[in-house]
């Protein structure tokens, strides 16, 4: 593990949110497949996808992953070891009872689903037990939401801009959030692995 993350612990983390747009698949394909089937944390993902066609990302990733991957359904309860993707044309929000809500309200930063909407609502519910990851992307969505995560006491990690297919989103978040840290995907992999259940 690199020096910079020694002080970082995911011990208190209860949920992970991820935001990405252009270049998302490459980054997620590195992050998600190593996770074991009993990974104890839920993962909520917003990727910018076109509004008028089904997204192929969940099935594409499910073929490579051991955690369960699905599209978020309205009012379903959040389960560990499950990755929930925001469906095309709907925002996903976290409710206090730790269920998910879909919303059709206006696009935010031209995006629906919007990363900011997911992150802000998740920060409100999970507070300091939330880990947010900003991956490759070509716009500023996620920067405001990342600020909310940090303000609530959570952790924000950003894919190293030079390693991202599109660096605008990581750079925008780093610029907006002095407390966000840039990290390589392999370092993030190691960090996520620290929460794998111990083999018995």
């Amino acid at each position, binding site marked *: 593990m690199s020096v910079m993350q020694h002080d970082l612990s995911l011990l208190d983390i209860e949920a992970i949110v991820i935001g990405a747009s252009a270049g998302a698949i490459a980054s997620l394909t590195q992050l998600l497949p190593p996770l074991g089937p009993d990974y104890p944390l839920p993962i909520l993902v917003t990727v910018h996808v076109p509004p008028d066609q089904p997204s192929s990302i969940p099935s594409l990733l499910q073929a490579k992953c051991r955690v369960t991957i699905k599209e978020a359904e*309205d*009012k*379903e309860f959040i389960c560990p070891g499950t990755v929930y993707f925001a469906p095309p044309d709907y925002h996903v929000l976290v409710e206090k009872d730790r269920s998910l809500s879909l919303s*059709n309200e206006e696009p935010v930063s031209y995006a629906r689903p919007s990363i900011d909407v997911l992150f802000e609502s998740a920060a409100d519910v999970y507070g300091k037990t939330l880990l947010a990851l900003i991956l490759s992307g070509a716009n500023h969505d996620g920067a405001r939401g990342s600020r909310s995560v940090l303000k609530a006491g959570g952790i924000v990690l950003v894919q190293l801009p030079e390693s991202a297919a599109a660096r605008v989103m990581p750079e925008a978040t780093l610029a907006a959030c002095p407390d966000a840290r840039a990290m390589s995907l392999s370092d993030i992999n190691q960090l996520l692995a620290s929460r794998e259940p111990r083999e018995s």
Partner: protein
Amino acid sequence: MTPDTTLSTEDIELRLFLEAMYSRYHYDFREYSKASLKRRLLLACERMGFPSLSALQGQLLHDDTMLPQLLSYLTVQVSDMFRDPGYFRAIREHVIPHLKTYPSLKVWVAGCSSGEELYSLAILFREEGLEEKTMFYATDINGAALAKAEAGVYDLQRIALFTRNHRLSGGTGSLSEYYNAAYGAACFDKTLRRRTVFSDHSLASDSVFAELHLVSCRNVLIYFDRPLQDRAVGLFKDALVRNGFLGIGARESLRFNAHAKAFREFLPVERIYQKRSDL
């Protein structure tokens, strides 16, 4: 005493705001999905220059002119004509043949907002030759949205999308037959709403008002929490005739609903349900 920190100040303010709204104006948002509601109300605070929900609540209680503005934040008004064309194609191809067997029809567009879906169905029913024997009910809690629905005037820039959706939905004619364009607006043929009753109706507090053959309520339930979703679908169940149809939004389902067993999945992909005949 030490303050109770199990609820954030904002969450307490939200609860009090919704109580104030209900006590003063009888608009009941208390069982709406809180995450989205909170987001939109904080946006209202930001845009209207209030430092907190408490401050906004004070103004709401003392100034009646705030209500319409706030309703536009509290209710989400996002729709397009023939939105999700597959839904309308499914109604045209699979639901209409059933509806043709009835001597007269009643259709409810619940949560009609500014009317895009009502006009879509009115056009579809005209194209399928059912308009003359159908009564439409278009309801919403937002008076300003209902007035827009009744006017049937939409920004001309939206017409390209409406036209594309109409064609994809299996529309038999050209959408341009149904509106006049002038001054940047498309004004829809008023005969399309000749058989429509526009009315204020709340799924949170009002009851069944007619016996219906088709209820279309799309992207409304997602703004409700589970108990209110149960109430709304219960209303639809009670209002529908046996074998009547219920259409909901592309990402909504009855899976977690208390009345799920009263319906069968008629066309699951398009989220069209049919009330069971043995009820």
